[in-house]
């Protein structure tokens, strides 16, 4: 007998005569305008990206410029503060606003690149291990367990502790320590997708395995990958900041570095540690909102 679920299989709309591609763009924009958090997320991310790209134009000072005449100037609204240094200066008289603006560059660069590294490794391994199973799969699962056993930040700390921390090593280390997350999700999705009848149909037609993975599996895991990638940019920004905070970050102006500079002056110059943290929080918030929005939009259950 047929299995009925009345509410879920409500009859579908007659296919409209509209052009499908045009239709899908509208389908994307309207909910975006409707979703307040989605709009907020996109705006924040856009602003941060803009700031990072045009940092030299936006920042009032060079981030490293030391000004001994203005050591530990408070933000402008406090006594002794001035509009010369809107958010104040640190213990060496460096302009905090400029440092935060430049910090966005490294944070985003590290965030996005390491996610790229992790994503590519993770998706390839996840696809093959989920599709073929066997030895690759067994190995992957053990790696997943090992990955859970060592906190990724500990892994990064150990590696960076013994190597010179440059931006490149940072990107590679964070990327390598987080690929397993993608592999795990892609693997489990592939495990269920490969039982879908359209994959079986492709097999019964005689489509090659490589083509099945490329044509039938990859597009259908892409939405989850995009969602994880978005949220891991957020996690990575925090990880990078933590590493810099512990003094194991690259020799550059990053949010974590600026924040840790303020750690020792917490009782006297609270703003040094506070503002970079706010910058991180707002950026991460924006990315989380964007990720949530993408998840809702790309959720195949909603799409179907």
């Amino acid at each position, binding site marked *: 007998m047929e299995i009925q679920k009345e509410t879920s299989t409500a009859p579908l709309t007659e296919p409209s005569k509209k052009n499908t591609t045009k239709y899908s763009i509208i389908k994307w924009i309207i909910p975006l305008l409707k979703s307040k958090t989605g709009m907020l997320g996109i705006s924040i991310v856009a602003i941060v990206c803009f700031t990072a790209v045009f940092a030299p134009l936006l920042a009032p000072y060079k981030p490293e410029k030391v000004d001994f005449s203005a050591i530990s100037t408070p933000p402008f609204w406090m006594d002794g503060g001035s509009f010369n240094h809107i958010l104040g200066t640190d213990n060496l008289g460096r302009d905090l606003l400029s440092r935060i603006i430049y910090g966005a560059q490294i944070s985003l660069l590290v965030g996005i690149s390491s996610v790229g590294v992790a994503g590519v490794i993770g998706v390839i391994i996840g696809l093959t291990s989920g599709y073929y199973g066997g030895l690759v799969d067994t190995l992957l699962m*053990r790696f997943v*367990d090992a990955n859970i*056993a060592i906190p990724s930040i500990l892994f990064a700390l150990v*590696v960076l502790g*013994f190597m010179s921390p440059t931006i490149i090593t940072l990107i590679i280390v964070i990327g390598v320590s987080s690929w397993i997350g993608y592999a795990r999700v892609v693997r489990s999705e592939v495990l269920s997708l490969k039982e879908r009848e359209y994959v079986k149909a492709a097999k019964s037609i005689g489509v090659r395995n490589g083509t099945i993975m490329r044509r039938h599996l990859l597009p259908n895991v892409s939405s989850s990958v995009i969602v994880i990638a978005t949220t891991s940019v957020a996690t990575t920004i925090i990880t990078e*900041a933590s590493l810099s905070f512990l*003094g194991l970050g690259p020799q550059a102006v990053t949010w974590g570095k600026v*924040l840790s500079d303020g*750690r020792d002056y917490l009782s006297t110059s609270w703003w040094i540690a506070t503002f970079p943290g706010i910058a991180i929080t707002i950026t*991460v918030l924006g990315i989380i909102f964007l990720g949530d929005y993408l998840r809702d939009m790309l959720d195949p259950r909603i799409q179907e």
Partner: protein
Amino acid sequence: MKYFLNRTAQVIPVLLIVSFILFFLVHISGDPVDIMLSENATEEDRETLRQSLGLDKPFIIQYFIFLTNMITGDFGKSIIYGQAALPIVLERIPATFELMLASIILSTAIAIPLGVLSAVKRNSPIDLLISGISILGKAMPNFWVGLMLILLFSVNLKIFPVSGTGSVFHLVLPAITIGSAMAAQMTRLLRSNMLDVLSQDYIRTAKSKGVKRLSIVYIHALRNSLLPVITVIALQISTLVGGALITETIFSWPGLGQLTIEAINARDMAVVQACVITIAVFVIIVNLIADLIYRFVDPRIRY
């Protein structure tokens, strides 16, 4: 019981991988002799030390030596403390354990009522508020939360001590620091699980029996929605330990985390290795326990 043994047996390959990764990292990270000897040591001195450490042997042999030493608990001598590394590390466990336990209890106590409330009053102002706070909790970097708590409660209000250990008051700020992110995550998770469970068929059955709304939430739905939370807590332990690394440093909490950072900064290989392995074993044990609890609570898995 059979399952337990099986599950414990699975731990061994994981530890092998962990130890291998660790060994590999140490191996590629540079010549330990450089760190151990002063710069003006002769080439001869270096060679003798290298031989005594077994560094002239092939990679894989070195790994097996490392492994056998590790199994016997011999990680070598600490540079900072000048004594065997493992006891130093083990000594630190209670402090970290205390901190973790406090933060888990704290975050659970916050997350369960908030998550339930949020799901039951879905889309109401309360739900929006709770969701907002929990997203914020997820977005704030752990260490920064710690600093801000110090700024607020220790520097300005002078309620809690800045750092150190000794009393319950010392525990409060670090526990909040580590627990806040976890509480945020748990609240979000519980809310979505709860919403999912509330739309299940068996909830409809309970309603059709005439069960009252409150009983449906607390008797029928809560238990079912807490199940996946157990798994997530277990998976989060790793992140929690990661958070402890930094938090302990900020609050000078004399636990494993602080020791690890200290050892990394001092390039104290023996202690670093011992710390990593200890943390790995700790996380694995917690996961094992969570797994057993899960099997005990869920009759679908319990045979």
